[in-house]
């Protein structure tokens, strides 16, 4: 009645996985099961990226083309009118996508490079290396980041490289905390010990042994961090120390056209103009959050 093989063979032992699927198949299966919110988020992000990449083609006028009348109303060749010095709002919205998102993306990448790198180093070395880095990060986190950023920007000037460096540094503290925490769970595994016993260097252990195992929370954090960086840049621009004119950017567009909102009682559409870039920011933030939520739920195995 049994199908027991008479002789034992290691090859015939049954492993855990019955069906093996390629990565693409697995991704597709997950996507099909994704909730509506996640789909909405992904479509919005894809649309933003598309607009950012093809800004030159899509925009009807130049980014800094101020050859039109100031405060022109909606319609008449300018879908959303023009701003205080006669630049086409619609075109600047499109270029703004490229600038704001590009800078935010670069900043987030840099923040992960700095924060993640130091965190892995701290987690693997432990002892005093960990103590020194962690306490330094604590000090940085103790200072309110927006005020700290304002201070640093006024010292180093509001050039785009300075902006990226400063925000990346400030945000890397959060990345550090998360990465160190998840890496701590991995460094105690025996395969890390085995790599140390083999005589592997710090770089190998960081990149090959630990990083692949902590990717899911980091990817989710990347999305969330991107939203925050994006908001910080917009906030700084709104305060006038972020991205400088004539570079189009949604934060400074809100500030430039803020005064229009009081004319809403005369021309409702004109009153909406400063809200357009604000809405663009809000929509992207929400979309990213939807996707991150779904991704976190998938990878952490939480059901609710």
């Amino acid at each position: 009645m049994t199908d027991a093989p008479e002789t034992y063979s290691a090859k015939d032992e049954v492993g855990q996985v019955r069906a093996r699927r390629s990565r693409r198949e697995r991704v597709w299966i997950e996507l099909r099961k994704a909730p509506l919110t996640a789909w909405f988020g992904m479509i919005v992000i894809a649309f933003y990226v598309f607009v950012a990449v093809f800004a030159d083609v899509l925009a009807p006028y130049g980014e800094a083309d101020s050859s039109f009348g100031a405060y022109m109303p909606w319609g008449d060749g300018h879908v959303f009118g023009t701003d205080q010095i006669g630049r086409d709002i619609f075109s600047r919205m499109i270029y703004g996508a490229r600038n704001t998102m590009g800078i935010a993306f670069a900043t987030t990448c840099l923040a992960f490079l700095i924060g993640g790198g130091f965190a892995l180093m701290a987690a693997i070395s432990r002892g005093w290396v960990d103590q020194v880095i962690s306490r330094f990060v604590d000090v940085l986190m103790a200072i309110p980041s927006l005020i700290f950023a304002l201070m640093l920007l006024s010292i180093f000037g509001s050039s785009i490289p300075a902006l990226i460096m400063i925000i990346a540094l400030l945000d890397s503290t959060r990345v550090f905390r998360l990465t160190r925490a998840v890496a701590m769970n991995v460094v105690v595994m025996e395969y890390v010990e085995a790599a140390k016993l083999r005589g592997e260097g710090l770089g190998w252990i960081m990149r090959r042994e630990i990083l692949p195992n902590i990717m899911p929370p980091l990817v989710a954090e990347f999305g969330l961090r991107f939203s925050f960086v994006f908001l910080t840049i917009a906030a700084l621009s709104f305060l006038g120390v972020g991205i400088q004119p004539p570079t189009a950017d949604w934060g400074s567009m809100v500030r430039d056209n803020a005064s229009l909102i009081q004319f809403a009682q005369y021309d409702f559409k004109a009153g909406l103009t400063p809200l357009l870039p604000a809405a663009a920011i809000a929509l992207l933030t929400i979309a990213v959050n939807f996707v991150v939520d779904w991704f976190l739920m998938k990878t952490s195995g939480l059901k609710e």
Partner: protein
Amino acid sequence: MSEDLLLHMKDIVIDGFSDEQWHPIIKGVSLELKRGEVLGLIGESGAGKSTLGLAAMAFGRPGIRLTSGEIWFDGKDLMKISEAERQALRGSRIAYVAQSAAAAFNPAHRLLDQTIEASLAHGVRSAAEAAEDAKSLYAAMDLPDPKNIGFRYPHQVSGGQLQRAMTAMAMSARPDLIIFDEPTTALDVTTQVNVLAAMREAVDRFNTAAIYITHDLAVVAQMADRIKVLRYGEEVEEAETQEMLSNPKEAYTKSLWAVRSIQKPAETSDDYVLEIKNVTAAYGTVPVLHDVSISVPRGKTVAVVGESGSGKSTTARVVTGLLPPKEGAVLFNGTPLPPELKGRSKDQLQRIQMIYQMADTAMNPRHTVREIIGRPVEFYLGLKGRAVDARVSELLHLIELDDSFLDRYPGELSGGQKQRICIARALAAEPEVIICDEVTSALDQVVQEGILKLLMKLQKELGITYIFITHDIATVQAISDEIVVMWMGKVVEQGMKDEIMQPPYPEYTELLLSSVPTMDPGWLKGAVAARKELSIAEQTGEA
């Protein structure tokens, strides 16, 4: 149906959910249990023992559904009654004792409160009565200071005591049926004896029926009146214990019984590849090893035996350089090794390799077999590209697997295959010494045998020296040349296998050897009586 039939499970089919679909786990198994009878459920991991055991109270873990069949308990079909009615039975009429007592107790509550919780919840008796009863149960379970032990928290008692307290907890409501799910698997052999004796006595005294789930045949021989063997969710065979032990019918059952058949004549040599000299080591200020000296002859197997906490694994950490010793030295081929890992050369690292107990955590789950085995090949031997692949394939064949495993991840391998890959990774470095830290204790019997045979074959072909750390005496008997017995951080004795296994023994060795269950159903009584005479048993903290 006869009067005293307590539990009758008919054609049970249970499905488990994985890979987006339902797979059958139990494929139509029937089971009968009379009042006061103990049934042993035996099988390898994945055979469906635990699932079937839990189904006896009509309970399925998440991701599991009871598809069809009838579960008659004391005249009621548990599949038909409501969840609330089933809930009322669980804990009061049917109790469950889990494998890891440490994980099953709530660390924030005292033992007594948890022991009587089920009795109170089901209104079996008042709190005061239940508390008095719990004390007598603790006494029955042979726990020390039964009047006060209930006021301790779970972390304040030992693992063996906790497992006994859990049995007392199951007994509290005087259930008709207790399901024991591998209750002694996590315990040391010396502890296991006491726990088994206490459980056996309690079951006899209260005439409780029990289902005893385990993969250890010798244990089930002590506990069960009848034994049922499961494999792949199907029943292989069922018989009275005595009948099953002396006369198994199916080929599979016979193979289970024959596992401990490996024999190897002990040899030794005076050529020592590794010598541990008077090593004293500590974690921080906590001393772990006291003046440990072990000599390892070249090309032979030295088994290091002892219960958990005896310093076996710490000795391995000193040899590998993970824990620099406070005093003493490790000599490799006559030259002392630098105490710290950082001080050792690549060549020194290459010569001593390690295989871990849990193959799951010893391999990076994100690396393929090709990467796992290939890395030491390219790291130590400096091979590149094709040459690495060729060597990896050679190693795979050496461990009796083939090229189809190259691109699999550890998660796609069975337990035995994973451990084989770990062996291949160690071999890839072309070492002289391999330290095997409990390499077979997480594996099923048949798989264990395969791994041990492989290790012996490799030793014969490649002349590798093993330091084999284990608490399993049967394994030691099978493969060792020399044996080192450790206890509380000291070496009790070292010698040839035949010498150590022959009386007269030092007291601790005798305790250890007498604690290993045998297939004889009468063994437990004799062992308990014998260990009462050993004063050392008091010191193990469990008596």
